[in-house]
């Protein structure tokens, strides 16, 4: 899968998803659960605002000194016995990995969940090189065996399938006994057996990288299922692919960010597994890879660095912004037509993949600011969305979506009193670039579908979070 799912228009994707009622229900309850989990975990930790401020300063410091830390990381990976390949483009990365696979005469490859490998279409490249690629994160695995279905959420990729659908896929593809139940535990246990076999016979293990530690050359992977542990324990060759910004200076900062990541993602203090690997296995060791390759990917990130959008590179991929977004709640993950959905996707996808295909995405937001408030590393997401809109209007001479539709969709009614915008200042900034020229189309824009949504939030003068709490109790589920 590349960053993009399909060539449908944004409008068609939205409409298709609005018609999928199971998915919409699943999205709502997942959002509620993950969001509540995060808020509880943050409260439990205490001083959450200070944690956020620290998370932000760590990430900003790393970005501002990225050259130093990447250099140091590479030195230390090499010292530990690993190889480092710096890849400017997706193709450089996939070419190198293909080369390693060919050299190793690899037939089977096991992978643990990774966004960046999706971004560079690694699976396709490996299949082209004659390898079978097996995703091992349960959610990703379900999607993969179901003819490469698309992920719908950053941390819960198979959210849009119910257990019965999963069972049907298993019966069809994994010889799951049709007499057995569609109970989640039983289904998962079946995968334990089928995937165990894949792990034991794999030639190469491929992982993403939650964080790398510059000072030690270590790679840190965070999972609940333990699949990253398996991928990095059994195969003889390991390839880790990291976005160039995903590193920290030392263990001290690693610890802070891992804690913030898992609390923000699912409300856990720590996940079941935090695996820290430093180089390949040492002499005399039996498990862990004999050969370790770290592939560091730019793929457009350096074009973001040093611009108004730099702060998006602070992202630690926790999905907290996704779980508070009222627009995501209504249109679901697939509408974004990108592996990155929700507010992070609406900001990042157009930067990595261009406005051509993604100029509507920055409009998939009510600018309520809930995402910015939820972000553990304080990325001003809604402000970045506004910046996108300003740029798009500058480039295109018009907005891709009509102002009237936008206002109607979010029940703003053109009123500056709307608290969806975090203040009149922002509201007027939204309106200004849209109405600057007379070219705004009055026809039904892609947002039309949203207006048909039953209970699209029509907030009064209350804070978003209070509104959310209020609605949680109601019929929204």
């Amino acid at each position, binding site marked *: 899968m590349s960053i993009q799912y399909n060539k449908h228009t944004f409008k068609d994707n939205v409409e298709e998803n609005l018609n999928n009622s199971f998915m919409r229900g*699943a999205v709502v*309850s*997942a959002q509620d*659960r993950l969001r509540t989990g995060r808020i509880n975990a943050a409260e439990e930790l205490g001083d959450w605002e200070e944690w956020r*401020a*620290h998370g932000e*300063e*760590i990430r900003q*410091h790393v970005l*501002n*000194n990225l*050259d*130093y830390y*990447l250099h140091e990381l*590479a030195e230390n990976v*090499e010292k530990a016995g690993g*190889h*480092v390949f*710096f890849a*400017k483009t997706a193709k450089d990365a996939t070419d190198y990995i293909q080369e390693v696979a060919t050299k190793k005469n690899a037939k089977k490859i096991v992978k643990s969940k990774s966004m960046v490998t999706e971004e560079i279409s690694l699976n396709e490249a490996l299949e082209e090189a004659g390898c079978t690629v097996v995703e*091992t*994160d*349960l*959610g990703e695995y379900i999607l993969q065996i179901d003819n490469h279905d698309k992920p719908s959420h950053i941390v819960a990729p*198979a959210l849009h*399938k119910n257990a019965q659908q999963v069972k049907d896929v298993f019966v069809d593809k994994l010889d799951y006994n049709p007499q057995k139940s569609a109970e989640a*535990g039983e289904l*998962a*246990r079946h995968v334990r057996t089928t995937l165990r076999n894949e792990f034991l016979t794999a030639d190469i293990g491929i992982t993403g990288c939650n964080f790398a530690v510059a000072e*030690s050359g*270590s790679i840190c992977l965070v999972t*609940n299922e*333990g*699949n990253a*542990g*398996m991928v*990095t*324990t059994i195969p003889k060759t390991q390839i880790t692919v990291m976005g*160039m910004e995903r590193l920290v200076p*030392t*263990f001290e900062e*690693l*610890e802070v960010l891992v*804690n913030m990541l898992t609390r923000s993602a699912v409300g*856990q*203090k*720590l996940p*079941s*597994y*935090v695996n*820290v690997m*430093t180089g390949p296995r*040492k002499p*005399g060791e*039996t*498990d862990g890879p004999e050969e370790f390759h770290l592939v*560091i990917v*730019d793929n457009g990130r*350096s074009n973001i*660095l040093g611009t108004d959008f730099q702060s998006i590179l602070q992202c630690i991929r926790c999905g907290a912004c996704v779980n508070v977004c009222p627009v995501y709640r209504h249109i679901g993950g697939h509408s974004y037509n990108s592996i990155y959905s929700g507010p992070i996707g609406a900001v990042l996808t157009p930067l990595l993949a261009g406005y051509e295909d993604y100029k509507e995405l920055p409009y998939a937001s009510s600018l309520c600011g809930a995402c910015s408030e939820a972000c553990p590393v304080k990325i001003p997401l809604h402000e970045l969305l506004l910046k996108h809109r300003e740029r798009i209007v500058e480039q295109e001479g018009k907005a891709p979506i009509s102002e009237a539709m936008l206002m109607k969709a979010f029940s703003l009614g053109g009123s500056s009193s709307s608290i969806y915008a975090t203040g009149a200042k922002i509201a007027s900034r939204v309106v200004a670039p849209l109405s600057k020229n007379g070219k705004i189309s009055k026809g039904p824009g892609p947002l039309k579908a949203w207006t048909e949504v039953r209970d699209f939030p029509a907030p009064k003068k209350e804070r978003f979070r209070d509104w959310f709490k209020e609605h949680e109790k109601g019929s929204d589920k």
Partner: protein
Amino acid sequence: MIQHREEFLETIGNSLKRTVNTKVKPQRNWKYAPQKKGYQGLSQDDLLEILEKQCDKIHTDVVTTTVKDLPNALEQVVDQYGGGPISMWQDSRFDDYNLKPLYEEKWPNKGYDVSKWFPELGEQNIQNAEKANIGLTFSEYVLAESGTVVLFSDQAHGKSVGLLPNNFIAIVKKSMIVPRMTQVAELLNKRIESGESLPSAIDFVSGPSNSADIEMKLVVGVHGPIHATYIILMDE
């Protein structure tokens, strides 16, 4: 081998609108340090209490015992998990704690296969761990807040032992309970600064493996262990 680093960093320097710096270590003058707050002045008993509460939440059993009673306690947990095969590290602490009669006589007599992790066995080690019903390890530290054991792997301490078997048992000293990951990170930092190399794998394990990928329902034991028990040595 490091490939294409120079031109890669050059691009980054251009983006940052300055010359590339690979020599001068950036100063980390953090304004905030929230992780250093809290958990002040807690006794080991307090930490144990926090640990037990957290383990309850993550489906992990905690058994407290003494060095003297450890053989009994361990035998019981192993029986509860349905016995062998048992995969264990090769570690002098097993003998220090008088567990030899258990793994050399009692368990084999009960028909429980026992395999220790010997470097010279090579791949066989992994196969043993894969077939094992129980994996038995020590843990260097325990994090109270998150219910986490910390496994350092090396020649005699295979990573697979904590990962492949259906059930996981870790023996830990009460004195090694620390509040949270912060303290272990500090220790690792010191190690690195003094030029020591790190183990090739450090695994922070918090309870059995789990997933919520199907309908957001929590299930345990997807790839790693299905059950986990920490045995705490109260007098150590």
